């Protein structure tokens, strides 16, 4: 008979803070190493594309950013649901920590998509399903952040924003598929980054970049979570100790 796992061990803010503090440098280092490796592979080693030439290499930044933007939103909605069901403040704080990074990833995906589109297809913007859904996802992130920032009472803000995140999450696939439908109807807009099959070495470099993006995201989100924890729990004993220690170091 083994020991029972206490799933709620890290639900205490002080323990969560220390865990985040310990993980962060490793995650950041992993992100840098993986990004260096992935970029070396993708930018230098991978062969020139037959149709797009060298410009396709933007995909090594565009695709990881786009994937992360969607994964982060799902994670955000997941933590929001946990926060609403188990009434745990920390879950809401995690969702709050995820949002800005998610918005940034969405922004990067949109910008790099435009920079890819212009030399490849001749237009800065194309209303294909993925870019359009990315744009709407950016608005969903901004809406979440704006709602949370506008409500004075932090608990109400947490729960309201979490409710919004869940409603938004259910809508994201609906939005995506409706735009896919819209595109198949209006054939003119169907040129764009389609799901083309990638050659083997390119795919491997892409996966490394995606792993780098994961590590970076976790590092940034944990860093933000620490800031949120300190700010919200400022009055508690553990937070005062941490802040005092940082002040003497600073």
């Amino acid at each position, binding site marked *: 008979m083994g020991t029972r796992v206490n799933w709620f061990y890290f639900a205490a803010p002080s323990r969560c803070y220390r865990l985040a503090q310990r993980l962060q440098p490793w995650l950041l280092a992993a992100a840098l190493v993986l990004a260096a490796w992935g970029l070396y592979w993708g930018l230098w080693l991978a062969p020139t594309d037959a149709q797009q030439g060298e410009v396709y290499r933007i995909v090594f930044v565009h695709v990881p950013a786009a994937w992360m933007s969607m994964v982060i939103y799902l994670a955000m909605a997941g933590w929001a649901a946990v926060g609403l069901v188990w009434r745990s403040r920390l879950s809401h704080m995690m969702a709050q920590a995820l949002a800005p990074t998610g918005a940034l990833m969405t922004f990067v995906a949109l910008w790099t998509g435009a920079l890819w589109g212009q030399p490849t297809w001749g237009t800065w913007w194309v209303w294909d399903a993925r870019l359009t859904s990315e744009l709407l996802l950016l608005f969903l992130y901004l809406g979440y952040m704006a709602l949370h920032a506008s*409500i004075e009472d932090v608990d109400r803000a947490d729960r309201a924003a979490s409710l919004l995140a869940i409603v938004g999450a259910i809508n994201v696939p609906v939005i995506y598929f409706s735009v896919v439908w819209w595109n198949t*109807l209006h054939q003119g807009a169907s040129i764009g980054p389609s799901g083309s099959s990638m050659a083997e070495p390119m795919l491997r470099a892409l996966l490394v970049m995606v792993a780098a993006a994961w590590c970076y995201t976790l590092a940034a989100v944990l860093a933000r979570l620490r800031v949120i924890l300190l700010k919200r729990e400022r009055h508690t004993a553990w937070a005062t100790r941490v802040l005092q220690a940082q002040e003497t170091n600073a």
Partner: protein
Amino acid sequence: MTASVVWAGAPTRGARSAWRALAVVWRATMLSQWRQRADLAAAWCFFLVVVALFPLAVGPEPQLLQRMGPGVIWVAAVLATLGSLPRWFQDDWQDGTLEQMVLSPYPLPLLMLVKVATHGALALLPLVALCPVLALPYGLGAEALGVLMAGLVLGLPVLSLLGAVAAALVLGVRSGAVLLALLVLPLTVPLLVLGAGAVGQPAEVVTAHLSLMAAMALLAVVGLPWAVASAVRLAVEG
């Protein structure tokens, strides 16, 4: 007789009284909206003005207007509903009626469904009724008009319920109206794509679009009232 007094007259026990409670919500909402009929009419006029503005801005070329017409009418309808959203919960929240609904023994999602349906119908059905008139400046034929109106009616539940969730979330929040736009408009994209996109398409495509919208409407009616109720509870208790 204020809305809250009407609400206080509801009986408190039994299944039959639950139905009566819903009827009370409906009556109270209609009453309060009748008293604010000027605001309602303003929203309808806003719709008309927006729809009239577009041809002036893009030029009178009939083919262009025919292609744009459904889209413009849909966007104007969404914007007009958006404009009326803040008033759906504001008064009841301020005079305590909403709190009474939350505290009542009746299932809050059901009460909210009736309230939202009333507000939504008052905001949108007149716009649907105005569509035949608007078909003339945009040169929409009878068939296109039919598809447009059917789409608007099918989109009414989703639009009202999504709008209601957002309106309840921003109750008492500063700059709530602007925030409301940011929250609601991205979520209305599937409706716009399906509703406006159905016009002018062959029959099978139209059926597909309208079936999808009907499915979304059913899902919304089943799932979203819970979200509206949660948001209202947050506003009342938070």
